[in-house]
């Protein structure tokens, strides 16, 4: 059962928000490798990732998978008031990991000088970089990244592509929802097209 160990799956998953159906009977099995989610604005990409992470209640159907997920959404999910380093330390400790790699990861992501400033005083891209450094500090088998290229400059985008490729090569499951970077398609094992809550696995 390698797939379930490092992945997650949805069966007939239906999500309703505000009495509107946002995801319709989605059947999906996410395994090792890169799964790319494409779809227009408002089609349900974010909702799909949140469903995979177990963050949104399903009106019908169910979700399987270990709890070991790293989900980074549209927003960086770092607590304001804490520095970038403190935020990452919290996450690593919570997973029972080793905090020694944090400095290196933040420096590699280009926020070495800024890691001891409160995250609300970083620029949008710096904050995104600090959040993405979590991919390296928390060695989690399932990564869910929602529009992770937003606000990144070219160097940051390059680094993120490499990180995604490396995670894929390491046998981790990576799900990325993004409008950008068509060249990612080549790396992807699965490409999902989502439209109005309906997931098309054949894309």
């Amino acid at each position, binding site marked *: 059962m390698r797939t379930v160990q490092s992945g997650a799956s949805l069966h007939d998953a239906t999500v309703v928000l505000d009495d509107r159906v946002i995801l319709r009977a989605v059947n999906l099995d996410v395994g090792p490798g890169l799964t790319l989610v494409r779809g227009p604005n408002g089609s349900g990409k974010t909702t799909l990732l949140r469903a995979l992470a177990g963050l949104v209640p399903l009106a019908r159907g169910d979700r399987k998978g*270990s709890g070991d*997920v790293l989900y980074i959404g549209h927003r960086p999910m770092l607590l*304001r008031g804490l520095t970038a380093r403190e935020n990452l330390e*919290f996450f690593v*400790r919570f997973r029972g990991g080793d905090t020694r790699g944090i400095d290196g990861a933040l420096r590699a992501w280009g926020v070495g000088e800024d890691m001891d400033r409160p995250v609300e005083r970083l620029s949008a891209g710096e904050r995104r970089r600090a959040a993405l450094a979590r991919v390296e500090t928390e060695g989690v088998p399932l990564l869910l990244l929602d529009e992770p290229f937003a606000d990144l400059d070219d160097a940051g985008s390059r680094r993120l592509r490499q990180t995604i490729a490396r995670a894929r090569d390491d046998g981790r499951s990576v799900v990325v929802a993004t409008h950008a970077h068509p060249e990612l398609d080549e790396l992807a094992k699965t490409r999902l097209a989502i439209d109005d809550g309906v997931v098309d696995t054949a894309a």
Partner: protein
Amino acid sequence: MSVPYRIALVAGRELRAERRQPDGVVAAVTFIAVLVLLESLVVGPSIARDTDVASALFWLALAFATILATMRSFDRELEDDALEGLVALPGGRDALFGGKVLSLATVLLLVAVVGGILSIVLLDLRIALPLHLLVVVLLGVLALPPIVVVDVVLALRLRARAALVPILALPVLVPQLVAATRGTSAALSGDAVGALSWAGLLFAFAVVYTVIGLTIVPAAIE
């Protein structure tokens, strides 16, 4: 990692952010100070110094401080979706309630000590049973946060959440506030039996609501 360790981590994260932005603490302390100042200025020190009045005001201010501090703590979590980042962690859901209650109780204890000393000094109160007073205050401080955290979590995704929380929380808090006020008043005026029996009631409240919170909140978050 064990659940208590994770609860401690969540509480530590919260307390660190609170230390950077000591919203709850200072606001509550100032509130109590001004309350005392204004009370004695307006109604005259003789009424304000009445043990019943003084302890009622003290606990009211503390209850309000609890609600404020809890709401601000979750407001901070909602910015940049930090709460979602925490809940998405394995075991995050289970640690949330405990961590929040623990950090809030710590903050409130600080507020209670500072506010209490301020009230005592400014109002020149005489304390008949200092040890009993300490027990009552400690248990009162432990009894307030659980129910408030539960209410804030229940109201989290709702539209009128800021309105809902006081409505949900305050009526539930009234019995605890009465118990805390009576207990404090008893300790101040030298009624040992009264102080201890009210303290026992506060302890029961604290235990019941903590158990309810630990059971219910993980399911209520999603």
